[in-house]
């Protein structure tokens, strides 16, 4: 069905009793041109771009649980394109531009809100680093503004500017950044992909790959039987190593847990997405009023989807340093998601050494903002068998070649990225 002001009015006047399912939940066919493993944002976006941009609609998306039950439903919903290194800047800006037209493209309200993302700086050295980053962004055609103290005070008068240890000196602002409704992004892509003939198959766990005599992948073994495929794409960040191991591959990835937090609802306070530059703390306020925030990964390998107390304490300390008045606000919910931490902090979108198997992995804890861009470039790779020009550096072999894209500059220690 197509959504419009009229469909909304019709549903409202009939007491909201006649809403139809927004996408088809189907059983698998025997064979597809492309099978995508993973019904998260990236997998569903890939399927939609395959069908809408590349004319390949005989596509299945296989999801072990229900769509959006992994990291797509566990993030802090931030979108931005304030990256500094070649390879990242262009790709994330491509993604940002796709966010800006997503709702029209998908005919679905994904609540994209360009409320601005501001990274606060607290020292002269940090100001210089942010100025450099802002300039890098502007050279690449991305919006960035370096705000001084007076401008930050005007925008966010509630911050603790008198903090003796971490005084706020200003911030780097990307006005086009902001937030989107994460679940709606999943449902929106499912809605639009399903309408173009993509099969979305839930409760279908991949347990192995079918290979022919040459070693080429010819399909997947699943909990709902064998499904043949011309090509198979993996978009299972968090579990990439486990799925790749079924094809005999070892990846430059470790799985780590990242926690996110929501407070009880309070009146409108935080006008944008804000990050504390002297620790690791980022926060926005949801439309329901809850403060949505997070910080560092816990730092140890984990598939448990839950974290521990030291990081909770550290994140809350970051919040308190910035806004001591939130100390009385109660934490409502807290959860964990499993991140594909790659060896340089950047993603991998490439063919694998196994014919017919394609990889979309290593998103670290920045996968949500990349959802539309990742879908487009991965669809391009699957459809054309060539790298998209904005994702040409996300190669699997870049570690061997020494062509790392290491924004933070910490080297091959995934828990530090």
């Amino acid at each position, binding site marked *: 069905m197509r959504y419009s002001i009229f469909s909304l009015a019709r549903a409202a006047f009939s007491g909201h009793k006649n809403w139809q399912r927004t996408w088809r939940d189907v059983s698998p066919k025997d064979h597809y041109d492309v099978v995508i493993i993973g019904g998260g944002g990236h997998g569903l976006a890939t399927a939609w771009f395959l069908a809408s941009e590349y004319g390949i609609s005989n596509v299945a998306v296989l999801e072990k649980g229900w769509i959006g039950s992994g990291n797509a439903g566990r993030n802090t919903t931030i979108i931005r394109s304030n990256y500094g290194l070649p390879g990242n800047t262009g790709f994330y800006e491509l993604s940002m531009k796709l966010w800006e037209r997503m709702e029209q493209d998908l005919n679905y309200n994904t609540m994209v809100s360009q409320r601005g993302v501001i990274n606060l700086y607290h020292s002269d050295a940090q100001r210089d680093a942010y100025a450099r980053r802002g300039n890098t962004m502007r050279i690449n055609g991305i919006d960035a503004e370096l705000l001084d103290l007076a401008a930050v005070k005007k925008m966010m008068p509630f911050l603790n500017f008198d903090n003796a240890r971490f005084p706020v000196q200003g911030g780097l602002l990307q006005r086009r950044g902001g937030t989107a409704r994460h679940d709606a992004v999943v449902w929106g892509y499912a809605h639009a992909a399903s309408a173009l003939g993509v099969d979305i198959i839930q409760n279908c766990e991949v347990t192995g790959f079918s290979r022919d005599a040459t070693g080429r992948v010819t399909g997947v073994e699943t909990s709902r039987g064998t499904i043949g495929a011309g090509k198979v794409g993996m978009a299972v960040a968090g579990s990439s190593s486990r799925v790749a191991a079924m094809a005999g591959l070892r990846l430059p990835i470790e*799985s780590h847990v990242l926690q996110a937090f929501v407070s009880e609802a309070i009146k409108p306070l935080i006008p944008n997405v804000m990050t504390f530059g002297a620790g690791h703390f980022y926060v926005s306020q949801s439309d329901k009023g809850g403060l949505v925030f997070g910080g560092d990964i816990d730092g*140890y390998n984990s598939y448990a989807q839950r974290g521990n107390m030291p990081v909770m304490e550290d994140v809350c300390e970051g919040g308190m340093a910035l806004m001591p008045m939130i100390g009385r606000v109660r934490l409502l919910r807290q959860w964990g998601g499993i991140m594909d931490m790659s060896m340089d902090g950047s993603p991998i979108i490439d063919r694998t050494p196994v014919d017919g198997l394609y990889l979309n992995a290593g998103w670290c804890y920045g996968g949500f903002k990349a959802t539309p861009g990742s879908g487009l470039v991965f669809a391009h790779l699957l459809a054309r068998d060539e790298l998209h020009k904005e994702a040409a550096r996300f190669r699997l072999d870049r570690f061997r070649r020494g062509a790392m894209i290491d924004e933070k500059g910490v080297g091959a220690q995934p828990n530090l990225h």
Partner: protein
Amino acid sequence: MRIVCPFCGERELGEFTYLGDAKPVRPAAGASEDEVFDYVYLRDNIAGAMSEYWYHGGGCRAWLKITRNTLTHEISSVEPAAGVGARQVAR
């Protein structure tokens, strides 16, 4: 998660720092590029019981070798990593 340090007893997680999988062994100086690449970049990324190195920076400052289940965070063994500390415990 709490870790029972063989030197200090049971301590909270915040005292410890994580290095990672204890399995990769640094190749010899004359090793091939493939072996070095494998050591530096590739990981088994085990889902289940994994042997790993932790550092007790907030306590005795010893390196520990811990077996922990990455699916449940359950710790099944903690022992001093090979070195001076391990030899002292053995004595």
